[in-house]
């Protein structure tokens, strides 16, 4: 294929734009997890810190949410895989005239808005409960039950699609051969069909679990007294946040990348072995031989690097203490504040001097301590107004910090001017990494 160099350039630009849209948000969120301001911010960088991970671990609502999510996820996986498998098998056998209708019905839950599914589940089981004369506390009104039911409705469709894709490659003759050789239907299903479907079952289960884990629209109507992780996250994001959520995202992304790399590595290894003439059964067994495995397998190399990096980070986090850096930043902020107080006082003094020149000034108060003029030009670099106009000063994250620092000298004016000075940035991050 001949390729115009111009097209190549455009393609490269397009790919860069696309993937920065795709991955940029995650990278930036990842950065905020290690930055010390208590409102998630990637810039300006203050101090490297790992405290948000421990904040996360101590957040019992998040931890309960994770537990509920796991319970719901496991329930949904079991139900959806069973139903999805049956749905796919029926699709292959159903009377051809009914096929299109059947397919439309079972595919519809994917297209129905999740909100609608949640509402219909809630309404239907509420009425079912009333119809059966059960109390409000009954099993049918339990948040976990409703969430599993609501999610299963559409996750089964996902699972079914996975099974349908796999079944398209199934040779029906195999089952028939087994039946001819005297196997019962159950035996033929268990020994021929099921083993063929195992990989699809694995994919469907993973897909179902992830879809369940991250579902919000349906769950938000059905969770009752058992908020899942997604619900807790949504509440946190809407009513005040700190970077511990970013820390959670970092953990999730890391696990995803590890899982994907591991999967890719296994696939590569199998492909390589099969290409070299080894039987497929010999490959699927364990038996790690590191050096050989790493050779020519980029996924494995990256995986190893990521693992080493991860362990290194954890060890570093044990030894690292951001306290010094934080004190440093606080000190910088205090200095900047003092500086601005002085400047303001200087201006006030000049104004009063001018007024004196105009005439007798009765408002001049002796209590106002004059600042020696020599001190004023001590910091020529910064403007008279310091960083008053920096929008970051009004930031709520920093506002939260005010009480715990000793600079109660003048709580009204921007206490934290100097942080945005690029000079401070270098210093603090330099200190941070040097430890």
């Amino acid at each position, binding site marked *: 294929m001949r390729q115009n160099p111009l097209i190549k350039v455009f393609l490269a630009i397009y790919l860069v734009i696309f993937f920065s849209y795709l991955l940029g948000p*995650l990278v930036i969120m990842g950065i905020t997890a290690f930055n010390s301001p208590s409102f998630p911010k990637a810039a300006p960088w203050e101090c490297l810190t790992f405290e948000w991970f421990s904040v996360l671990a101590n957040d019992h609502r998040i931890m309960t949410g994770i537990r509920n999510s796991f319970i719901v996820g496991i329930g949904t996986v079991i139900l959806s895989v069973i139903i999805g498998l049956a*749905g796919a098998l029926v699709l292959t056998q159903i009377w051809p005239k009914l096929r299109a209708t059947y397919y439309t019905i079972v595919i519809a839950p994917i297209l129905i808005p*999740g909100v609608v599914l949640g509402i219909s589940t809630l309404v239907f089981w509420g009425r079912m409960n009333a119809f059966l004369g059960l109390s409000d506390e009954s099993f049918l009104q339990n948040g976990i039950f409703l969430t599993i039911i609501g999610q299963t409705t559409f996750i089964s469709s996902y699972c079914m699609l996975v099974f349908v894709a796999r079944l398209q490659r199934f040779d029906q003759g195999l089952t028939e051969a087994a039946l001819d050789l005297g196997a019962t239907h159950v035996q033929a299903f268990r020994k021929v069909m099921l083993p063929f479907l195992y990989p699809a079952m694995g994919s469907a289960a993973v897909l179902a679990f992830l879809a369940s884990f991250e579902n919000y*629209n349906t769950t938000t109507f059905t969770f009752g007294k058992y908020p899942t992780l997604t619900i807790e996250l949504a509440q946190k994001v809407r009513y005040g946040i700190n970077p511990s959520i970013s820390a959670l995202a970092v953990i*999730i992304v890391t696990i*995803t990348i590890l899982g994907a790399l591991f999967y890719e590595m296994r696939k590569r290894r199998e492909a390589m072995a099969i290409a070299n003439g080894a039987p497929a059964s010999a490959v699927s067994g364990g038996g790690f031989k590191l050096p050989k495995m790493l050779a020519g397998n980029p996924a494995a190399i990256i995986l190893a690097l990521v693992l080493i990096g991860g362990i290194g980070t954890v060890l570093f986090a044990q030894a690292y203490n951001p306290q010094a850096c934080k004190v440093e930043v606080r000190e910088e902020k205090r200095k900047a504040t003092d500086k601005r107080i002085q400047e303001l006082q200087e201006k006030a003094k000049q104004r009063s001097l001018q007024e004196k020149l105009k005439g007798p000034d009765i408002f001049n108060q002796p209590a106002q301590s004059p600042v020696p003029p020599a001190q004023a030009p001590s910091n020529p670099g910064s403007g008279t107004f310091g960083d008053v106009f920096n929008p970051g000063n009004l930031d709520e994250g920093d506002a939260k910090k005010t009480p715990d620092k000793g600079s109660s000298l003048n709580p009204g004016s921007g206490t934290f001017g100097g942080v945005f000075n690029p000079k401070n940035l270098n210093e603090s991050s330099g200190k941070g990494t040097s430890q």
Partner: protein
Amino acid sequence: MKGTFFKEFFNRNGPLLGTYLLLAVAFWIIILIVLPQLSMLDYSFRFNLPPSAQGGEKDVYTMSNYQHFFNGSEGNPERLSIFGYQTDIPFNKVDIAVFFKTILAAIFVTAFDLALCYPLAYFLGQSASGPSGRVLLLLLIIPYWVNEILRAFAFRIIFGATGVINTVLVGVGILDTPIDFIRENVALYAGLGYAYLLLMIFPIYNAIESLDRNQIEAARDLGSPWWRIHWRIVIPFAKPGIVSGCTMVFMLTAGALAAPQILGGPSSLWFTQIIYQWFNTGGNWPRGAAYAVVLLFICIVFVLAMMRLFKVKMGEIGK
């Protein structure tokens, strides 16, 4: 006819397996899909009664919930005007405006995703094979496994008043004051487009991947310019994938709740948020159900109309 079908079905699968298949599918279709939807439909025609009065003589059918969507609450001063003619019909301007804004925004987001994804899907399907293609696919999938809430949250970090973009722009000196991206809904559209990007790419990618490369080569050898190759060969071939991706993105965007809640400006509402309010703070479930029915109905009609327009069958969706 039906009887023979069941007979054949059990002959093929045996009693145990046949029962499992039928029970599981019946449970799914009847208990999980059809009855809840019918129940919601029925519920949307009821008055909002306390539990004690439900099933009593006051529990009759009513159109009041749908009337509220079109006409607003009683004493609503807004009147419908058609092409400048003022009528006497009360008109729920707020809810209907939100509804159309939601639909229009969903169409816009869908078009944006399609424009962004088509070139990549084509590139992945036709040019990128081997390890580099697999790495790209992997990169595509990773963001999708991250929680929807967290993805929306990432956009808040980027677009917030003290977010990355504003900090950089102000810091470099391009801007004097930060732009309120959240109020302008820029963050919302970016986040919504982002959320379902993958559902657009994969159907198109799957379709284009199966296109025989020789067709493109032949067209090129015969002197066709690149845009005509796409217009006459690739797009018609990938049409089921394109429609499938557009349908999913449109339905999911119109029905999105998390992104509007997190990224929506203070003055903007998404239609799902109104439904959510009726269920939670509003405390009027039948009305919420009626609004949900309206959303579902209009979305389905819209999608079916589009499929009719582009001559694509339902069976081709989801493949």
